[in-house]
C-alpha cells in the first residue's frame, strides 16, 4: 500500500464528518482501492497484458428524506470537504420535487473486518508463470486441425473498501476474485463457431486466489475444446421444434441470472430502474403467493457461499451478509432488498445493496442466486430422457423489460435419443416465458454437478455499473420448449 492509500480509512471518516457538518442527517462513505490484472494470449501471441489501480471515495447523504451522492478520486482534505458538500447539495436539489421521504430499515452499526479466503495471492504469482500457462493452453488448442483462433485469458480483481457511517459503523473489507478460461474459434465457408471452457465470456471466475486457476484444467481441456469448435463448422443447424430441453450447469447460470435474479430485485419491482433496464413481472405483494416454478425448483440468495462473486461480510450499507430463501419448492417467497426498499414489504434489508466501487451509488445487486441441487448427475438426466436437445455453454442472451420473454443462444447442442447423445448441432437457441419455462422443469441435478459460477459483468443502473455476482447451478431439464428460433 502506497502513501496515497495509507490513510483511506481516515478519508472515509473525514468524509462522513464533513457531510454531517454540511447538513447531512445521515451519511456514509466508502473509501476504496480497486486493483485488476488481466492477461490474454491468442494463437500463442500476447494479445494484452494490463493492470489498473483506482482509488477514491464516495459519499452518500440523506437530507430532508432525499439521497445525495458525490465521489472523487482526489483524497486531500479540501477536496473531500468539497465533495461532501456536493453530496448534500445533490440531496437538497432533489427536494425541489415533491415526494415521499426515504425511510431506512434499521441496522446495528458494526465494527468489523472481512476478507475473501485466499490461499495464493493472485497478484504475487509471477507474470511469467501466468503467461506460460496461457501460452501452453493456446498451443494445445491449436493442435486441433482447422482451428482459426485459440485464446486464453486470466483476470484478477481485488477491491479494498473502508466503510464508515454516521451511525457508527466502521467496516474494512477486501474482496479478491480470480478467473480464467479458454476459447477456440473456427472460421470457414462464411461460418464462425466457438467453444469455451470452463464457461464463455472469460471462463470461470470465483472469489478465490490463484489456487482456483490451478484447478481449472485449462491445458488439459484445450485440445477437446479446439476440436469441438472445428466440428461445429460441419454440424447441421439446430432444428426448429418444441421439445424437451436439457441445459448444462453453465447455461443454467445465465438462465437463473436473467429470469430469476433480476426480476427479484426489489428496486426493479418498485419501478426505480424502469426507464433503463426495466422493471419486473413480480409485484411487491407477491411474496408467498406466486408460483414461479415447478416444485422441484428452490432458489436461494446466499452472500455467505464460499467462492461466490456475491460473497461478502457486509453490503455497502453495512448490513451483514445473509442467506435468504427466494423460491421454495416453486413458490416465490422473498425479494432482494436494501435498507430503503425493504420496508415496503415489511422486512429489514437482506443485505444486497452494493456499488461498483467507490465512485458509484449502491444499488440492489444479486448476491449468489443459486438453484438448490436435487438428485442425479447430468448423465443420469440425459439417460432418463427419451427425446430432446441438450445445450451447452451460453453464447447469447436477451430478455424483455419485465423479465418475461427470453431467448438464449448456446455454443453447441446434441440430440438426445433413447437416453443417449447423438447428432451434434450448431447455432442452438431456445425461447420461453419465465413462469411457464420454470414451471416445466421436471429434473434438477444433484450436488455432483452443482457448480458455483461467477458473473463478473452484470450491468445495471445509470451511470452504468458492473456488478460481480454468483450462481450455484446444476444441470436441469425442461419440457415443451421452443428451440431453434429463426428469423
Amino acid at each position, binding site marked *: 500500500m502506497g502513501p496515497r492509500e495509507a490513510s483511506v480509512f481516515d478519508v472515509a471518516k473525514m468524509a462522513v464528518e464533513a457531510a454531517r457538518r454540511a447538513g447531512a442527517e445521515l451519511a456514509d462513505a466508502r473509501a476504496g482501492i480497486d486493483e485488476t490484472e488481466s492477461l490474454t494470449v491468442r494463437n500463442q501471441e500476447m494479445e*494484452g497484458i494490463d493492470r489498473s*489501480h*483506482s482509488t477514491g471515495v464516495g459519499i452518500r447523504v440523506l437530507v430532508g428524506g432525499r439521497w445525495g451522492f458525490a465521489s472523487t478520486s482526489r483524497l486531500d482534505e479540501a477536496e473531500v470537504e468539497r465533495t461532501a458538500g456536493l453530496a448534500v447539495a445533490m440531496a437538497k436539489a432533489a427536494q425541489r420535487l415533491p415526494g415521499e421521504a426515504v425511510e431506512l430499515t434499521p441496522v446495528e452499526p458494526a465494527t468489523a473486518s472481512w476478507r475473501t479466503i485466499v490461499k495464493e495471492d493472485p497478484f504475487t504469482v509471477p507474470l511469467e508463470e501466468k503467461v506460460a500457462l496461457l501460452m501452453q493452453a493456446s498451443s494445445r488448442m491449436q493442435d486441433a486441425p482447422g482451428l482459426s483462433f485459440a485464446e486464453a485469458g486470466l483476470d484478477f480483481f481485488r477491491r479494498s473498501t473502508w466503510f464508515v457511517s454516521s451511525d457508527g459503523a466502521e467496516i474494512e473489507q477486501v474482496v479478491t476474485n480470480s478467473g480464467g478460461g479458454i476459447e477456440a474459434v473456427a472460421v470457414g465457408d462464411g461460418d464462425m463457431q466457438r467453444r469455451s471452457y470452463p464457461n464463455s465470456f472469460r471462463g470461470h471466475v470465483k472469489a478465490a486466489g490463484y489456487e482456483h486457476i490451478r484447478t481449472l484444467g485449462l491445458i488439459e481441456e484445450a485440445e477437446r475444446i479446439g476440436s469441438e469448435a472445428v466440428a461445429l463448422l460441419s454440424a447441421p443447424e439446430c432444428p426448429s421444434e418444441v421439445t424437451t430441453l436439457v441445459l448444462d450447469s453453465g447455461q443454467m447460470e445465465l438462465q437463473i441470472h436473467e429470469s430469476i435474479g433480476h426480476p427479484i430485485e426489489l428496486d426493479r419491482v418498485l419501478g426505480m430502474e424502469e426507464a433503463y433496464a426495466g422493471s419486473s413481472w413480480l409485484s411487491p405483494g407477491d411474496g408467498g403467493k406466486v408460483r414461479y416454478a415447478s416444485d422441484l425448483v428452490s432458489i436461494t440468495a446466499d452472500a455467505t457461499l464460499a467462492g461466490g462473486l456475491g460473497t461478502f461480510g457486509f453490503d455497502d450499507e453495512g448490513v451483514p451478509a445473509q442467506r435468504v430463501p427466494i423460491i421454495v419448492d416453486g413458490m416465490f417467497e422473498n425479494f432482494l432488498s436494501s435498507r430503503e426498499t425493504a420496508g415496503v414489504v415489511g422486512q429489514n434489508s437482506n443485505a444486497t445493496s452494493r456499488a461498483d466501487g467507490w465512485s458509484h451509488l449502491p444499488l440492489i445487486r444479486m448476491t449468489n442466486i443459486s438453484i438448490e441441487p436435487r438428485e442425479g448427475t447430468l448423465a443420469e438426466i440425459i439417460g432418463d430422457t427419451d427425446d430432446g436437445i441438450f445445450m451447452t455453454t451460453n453464447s447469447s442472451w436477451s430478455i*424483455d423489460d419485465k423479465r418475461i420473454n427470453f*431467448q438464449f443462444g448456446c455454443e453447441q447442442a446434441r440430440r438426445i435419443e433413447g437416453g443417449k447423445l447423438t447428432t451434434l448441432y450448431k447455432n442452438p437457441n431456445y425461447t420461453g416465458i419465465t413462469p411457464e419455462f420454470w414451471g416445466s422443469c421436471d429434473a434438477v441435478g444433484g450436488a455432483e454437478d452443482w457448480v458455483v459460477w461467477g458473473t463478473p459483468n452484470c450491468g445495471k443502473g445509470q451511470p452504468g455499473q458492473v456488478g460481480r455476482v454468483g450462481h450455484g447451478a446444476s444441470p436441469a431439464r425442461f419440457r415443451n420448449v421452443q428451440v431453434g428460433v429463426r428469423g
Partner: protein
Amino acid sequence: MSAGEGDAGTTGGRSAGTTGGSGALLGPDEFRRIADGALSLKGADDVEVLLIHEWGGLTRFAKSEIHQSIAREDTELRVRVAKAGHIGVAASNDATPEGAAAAARSALEMAGVVAADPMWPGLAPPAGAPEVDRFFDATAASSPEMRADAVAELIGRCAPGCTAAGAFETTAAELGLANSEGQLCWAPSTQASLTTVVTGPDGGSGFAEVFAGSTEAIDAGAVGTSASDKAVASASPRALDAGAYTVVLEPAATATLVGFLAWVGFGGRAYIEDRSCFSGKQGAQVAAPSISIWDDGADLRTLGAPFDFEGTPAQRVDLVTDGVFRDVVFDRRTAKEAGRDSTGHGLPSPNPEGPFPLHLFMDTGDATVDEMIRSTERGLLVTRFHYSNVVNPMESSITGMTRDGTFLIEKGEVVGPVRNFRFTQSILGALSSVSMVGREAHLASEFFFSASRVPALKVDEFHFSGVSDH
C-alpha cells in the same frame, strides 16, 4: 478544441462550476506535465499516455420523484509501453506526474515478461486532429437544481394517471494523448441526455429522449409530452401473432440496428479475420440503395473527441454507400495487418476486440414518419428495441424486444397499441427491405453502444419470433 504537436490550444483551465460536478479541465499544458512523468521513462522504446478525465451530474427519477442525485469525477491515466515489440499497459487514476511514472514502470515490467508482438505497429506519429469545439461551458457547469427543474417540467407534462421515470445526465470530459513519437492531442467535450419512460394506466408506456452535446438542445417539456402521449396511446395493448410484418422504425429502433451492425461487421479486425458479416463482400449490394452509413468523428453533429484512443485523427469512413458495402474501420495494428492506414478508430489498449466506429451516421431520405404510416397497408410502428443481442454474427442476425410504444398500423393509420414482440432478424436483411427513409436524423442511444445519428426507416419485411404479455 484539439491540438496537434506544438499547438496545445488555449482552452485549458475552464471551470466547470461548483454545484454541477466535481471537475475543471486540466487543460493540455497540465496534461503534458502529467504525461511527462511517464514519457521520461528509461528503458522503453515507446511510451504512450492516454488521459480520460470525466465529471458530471445525474438526476434520476422514478414514479415522478427524484430518487438518485449524483455527482461524480474520475480520471484515468492509461500508459502503454513498448520495448522491442514487447507491450505492457498499466492504468491508474492517480493523475499526477508521479502516478504516470508509476504506471509506466508497471507497464514496462509487464512488457519484460511477454513475447514480442510481431504486428506491433509503433505509436501514432505527430498529426493534427480536426478542429471541432464540442465543449459547452454551461453544460459542464450544469447544476443539480437546473436538472431537477427540468425533470419537474417533464413530469408536469405527463397526463393524469401517468408517472415518469428516467434520467437527466450532464457530463464533461477531456481526452488527451501524448506519446514518445511527439504526438500530443487534447480535446474537451460535453454531453447532455434526458431520457424518460412514462407509464400510464392499463399497461401504457411511452419513451422519449434527447441526446446532445449541450443542454441547450434539451426541451424537457417536449420530451415529457412526447412520452406521455405514447403512454396514453399504448394503454390496453392487444395481442397479435408473431410473424413477418412491415415496420416503421423510429430513430431509437434504427439505432439498435446500426449499433449491432457495427458490432458484427464494421470492425477491421473481424473483417480481415473473415469473422465479419461483411467479410468477402466488398463492393456487394448489402442493403437497399437508399441506405448509406458512415463514421465521422470530426462531424460537429456527433459527440466525443476528433481523434481515437491511440492519438490518430478521426477520418470519415464510408461503410455502406447506396446500399453497397465499401469499407471497415482500422486502428494501427489492424491497419498494419491489412496493409492500410489507421482510420482513427482505435480503442484504449489493450484491445483484443480491435477497432470500432463510435460516431456513426445513417443518411437521411425524404419521408416523414407520417408518410411512412400512411403508405402502410398493415404493419407495426416501433418506438424502440430493448436488450438486443447477437444470434448469428456472420448473418448479422440479432434478437431483442420492442418496448415503450408498439402500435398496429392498418390502412395507413395507427389503429391501436399491441403487446411487445420479440424479433429475430438479420440486420442486413432488414436494411435490404427498406422502402422509405426518414428526412430527419436524430442522435439516438442504444443500450450497449454509443449514440448514432440515424433517421426513421420503413422496412417492408421484419420478422417477429415471439410475443410478451405486456
